[in-house]
């Protein structure tokens, strides 16, 4: 039985860089359309709750918008989808079924942290505060 010639591979690996990515210090390269964190643009959201009904992981809860924000007239019930990213499976069903295409899809994937992350921080920045 002949051995495969490993010598070339050994020499190549001696001069090449390590394949391991030092993750928190170096970001993993992902595609621009990678399915990352998604959140609703509240300027377009009508509060119809279809995404919360269709979510396979039950990660979306319709939540009242705090009173200090100006809400467009198309959202009379003043509610918005609050996504719990700990439960979310990033299947993008909510993005695809939204009748007003209100969802903003990003390729952000590094959401692990000490506090629980929800879409509140992203969604509410799309609205103006009252008086500002």
């Amino acid at each position, binding site marked *: 039985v002949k051995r495969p010639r490993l010598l070339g*591979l050994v020499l190549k690996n001696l001069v090449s860089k390590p*394949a391991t990515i030092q993750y928190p210090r170096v970001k993993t390269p992902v*595609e621009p359309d*990678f*399915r990352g964190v998604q959140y609703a643009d509240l300027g377009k959201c009508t509060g119809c709750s279809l995404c919360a009904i269709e979510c*396979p992981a039950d990660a979306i809860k319709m939540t009242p918008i705090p009173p200090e924000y100006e809400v467009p007239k198309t959202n009379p019930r003043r509610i918005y989808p609050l996504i719990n990213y700990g439960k979310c499976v990033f299947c993008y*069903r909510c993005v695809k*079924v939204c009748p007003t295409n209100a969802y903003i899809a990003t390729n952000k994937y590094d959401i692990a942290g000490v506090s629980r992350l929800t879409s509140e921080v992203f969604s509410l920045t799309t609205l103006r505060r009252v008086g500002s």
Partner: protein
Amino acid sequence: LGVTKIVEIPVVTAEIPVGPQHPALHEPLLLKVYAEGEEVVKVEVNTGYNHRGIEKLCERNTFYRDIFVVGRVCGICNAVHANCYVRALEQLLDLHPNKRAQYLRVLAMELERVHSHMLINAVMAEIVGFETLFMQIMLDRERVMKAKEILTGSRVLADYMMVGGVRRDIDEEKRQRIRELLLKLKPRVEYYRRVFEEDETIVKRLVGVGRISYGEATSHSLVGPTARGSGVKIDSRVSDKYDAYGEIPFNLVTRSEGDSWARMMVRWDEALESIEMSIYILEHLPSDGNPVPDEKRLPRRFPPGEAYTRVEAQRGELTYYLMSDGKGQNPYRVKIRTPSFNNIINSAFMYIGYSLADVPVMLTSLDPCISCMERATVIDLEKNTRYRLDLKQLAGGKL
């Protein structure tokens, strides 16, 4: 050293539990091995450590939510699970996706087959004690994962199948990038195949271990590469020609040896076939319309009826039975039969006569996927017995 006394140890059968948590096994499965000395005389396969109630969960969710639920049955083969379920839904609705969507579906499934076969071959290299090879194969597997990320938007969980088509299209740039990745991967897979063919460590551990004859493979209804390694020509892609498999040229790989080595070689040859198929798809992708259906306009109501579909998953034939009563938005019944269910439970005969150290090798050569296969068992804890119930009793809750 002068020997003064010889103690004879009588040969007794020892019961050795291998698993469910065991350093040599990557899956939660209990093999109760009865050994006389080093020789295995009997093996009992014990399952039930990974049951998650997916079928019941499917009955409690809507038809569309279930597409994503069945994708989570198994991480490695999520696209084939979703494809099988989606084709069952299309059978109920009498919908036919266009050619481009069918080609893209096959592309996603074949990329998945490449990375699954590379994974189990890497695991096999680790089990036989060749950890460098494990690292090397896993490094090159990243190329397929990247190709899958470009195609579907995620490395592992594709969520690519939708009733009436796929969930995203590819453009010219993506097509070129996936093609380049595959062309770079192909010589590496050929190299690893040669390593499995020529390397002394691997050949010594695998050749002649866990032999299954043609007759045994058919009488125990083994499926997939396990059966094809024994020369059985069984492949749903060839016999059913679902999606675009009727138009894409590929060879059915079989080997006659029937041992662990033959099963691994079938996987390498299939991985090479899959790479060829993927490149063919990328070069001959038809453009007969939009493959992405509008998910807002898909039919909400499903007519009453039954559908039964099968796909060739990486481990063998995977079947879905779907029943709709036409009343609500949920399926009445979803029955999943995965290939590992056949391959693991029916293959206890294979271990007999081999050494105890070969048990992990033989199990790995079957490509076990326990999270796929765990379905329901009824156990009475008070009386410490287990029994079967027919479906009517189980649904009615009466004993």
